């Protein structure tokens, strides 16, 4: 593979900062390991998050819609505390950046991966977000008893998620840097990639799970936005779609009618 000037420069800096030999970092990159895992961090908005295999690396598309969501939330809520639940929190990138940008958000993140829960809590500490404002817990939102789980405290004002949305077929086509290093459970959303949106649609339709004026923000795959809107509309939510900077329908925003 061909290393770009930029990647080489970033690796040089990482080698210098962490006192590791550059050759070994370059060798790891040649073995297709994601640059972010080698360096150990990924900037996300104003935050610098720790990343570690196999927890999903925050993507620029996610960064873009989270910043936009923060602007939306900051203008529509006043100063009262807002509660947020992030499903499949991964590195914690979504709730942590929202906490950073909106001082009145109090967030809970859940994930089925102990690696993710551990990393998300480390990131909260690194970003200076106290436990009272964000805490990640081990919890499975596909479990039937989920809404009664100890970590869950409805109603929530905001629900965010970047659930696994890659179809089983597409998963086999992914390049090595994604497939060999990132957790498949953070990527594969069943045969049609929509499995977790069905679960989320059922969840938000439950009485008392979300507050009356709740906002739901879900990242979706490049061709899934319309299908996800169709799932959410019957639950009494009005949906809109946000494009990402590369022209893909990336985020479904749902608010009660």
């Amino acid at each position: 593979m061909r290393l770009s000037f930029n990647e080489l420069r970033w690796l040089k800096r990482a080698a210098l900062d962490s006192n590791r030999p550059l050759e070994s970092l370059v060798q790891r990159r040649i073995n297709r390991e994601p640059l972010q895992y080698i360096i150990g961090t990924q900037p996300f908005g104003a935050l610098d998050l720790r990343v570690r295999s196999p927890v999903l690396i925050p993507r620029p598309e996610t960064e873009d819609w989270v910043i936009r969501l923060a602007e939306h939330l900051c203008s529509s809520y006043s100063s009262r505390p807002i509660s947020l639940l992030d499903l499949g929190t991964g590195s914690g990138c979504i709730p942590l950046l929202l906490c950073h940008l909106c001082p009145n958000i109090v967030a809970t993140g859940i994930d089925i991966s102990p690696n993710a829960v551990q990393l998300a809590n480390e990131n909260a500490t690194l970003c200076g977000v106290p436990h009272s404002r964000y805490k990640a817990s081990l919890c499975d939102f596909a479990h039937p008893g989920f809404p009664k789980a100890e970590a869950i405290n409805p109603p929530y004002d905001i629900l965010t998620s970047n659930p696994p949305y890659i179809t089983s077929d597409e998963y086999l086509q992914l390049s090595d840097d994604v497939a060999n290093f990132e957790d498949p459970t953070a990527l594969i959303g069943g045969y049609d990639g929509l499995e977790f949106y069905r679960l989320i649609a059922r969840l938000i339709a439950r009485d008392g799970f979300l507050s009356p004026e709740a906002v739901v923000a879900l990242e979706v795959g490049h061709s899934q936005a319309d299908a996800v809107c169709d799932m959410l509309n019957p639950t009494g939510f009005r949906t809109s779609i946000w494009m990402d900077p590369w022209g893909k329908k990336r985020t479904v925003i749902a608010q009660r009618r």
Partner: protein
Amino acid sequence: MASPEDIDRLRQLKESEPLQEAWDHWTSTLKAYEDMETLLSDPDPAMKALASEEAAELDQKLLTILKSTFPSLLIPHSTTANLSALVELKSGVGGTESSLFLETLLRMYMRFSQSNSWKPTVVANNENEGGGIKDAIVEIKGTGAYDTLRRESGVHRVQRVPATESGGRVHTSTVTIIVLPLVEEQDAQKESLYTMDEIKLEVMRARGAGGQHVNKTESAVRITHIPTGITVSMQDERSQHQNKRRAFQVLSARLMDRKITREIAERRAKKNSLIKSADRSEKIRTYNYAQERVTDHRIGLSIMNLSAVIEGNALQDFTDALKQDFEETTMEEMLESEL
């Protein structure tokens, strides 16, 4: 708690400190001189000689205060005195040789900044395939960085035998330096340099499916300020957000630079000033390796120690001399307009 008025007053007080300092210096020196005068007629010849020596020294000091310290206080306080700088370096004629020299100049400005206790950060660095750097942007954070460096803007010329030249011929290559005033994000809004509807933002790469499907490491952005046609591309940072932030920082600096330039031109036009504004295509300095000489063509100053200049230390001699020249010119201009 300090109110905004208090802060204004504090600033005014701080800015008037040099006046008090100069006056104190003048009165104490004058007092010392007067004390010495009585000793000039001392009967002891040794004492008398000592006194006259001392008196001559004090006389010189008084003259310096009168001739340079006091006049320099008349120079209007620089409105850009607090600003940090953004230094753009662009290779000019000479191909790879120009890029190699650009790398040397970049190091010079980095070292010079460190020795002035400013914080330099390379924010863009476009390497040249054959060696050296094609173009670069350095952010230099610190009070006075812009005012000290702004007269570095212009064409810097290097004369030497390139390492790649087998015939031993001396080549002349150039690098263009542009020093811009760095405005912080919140100040940029206060200055209302642009509005968001004047901005076109483009992301450089198509990403296929994007999202979870791919892991692209680069997030280049390009912004265009439609009214002026200024475009800024940024790809050196690892996130889209950071690249965008940097791009807006460079855009603000360029717009601020235009604004300052325009204001100076308007002021000069009002006074019918004949002093021409600095022209960025003008050759301002030559670095001659064979003669170990660096010459600034605007003030005719040569420093016969090229190594000391490019190591960053002796650059101070140029910036000091240029500042003095600027102040003298400003004074002349002020006197002329009085007539």
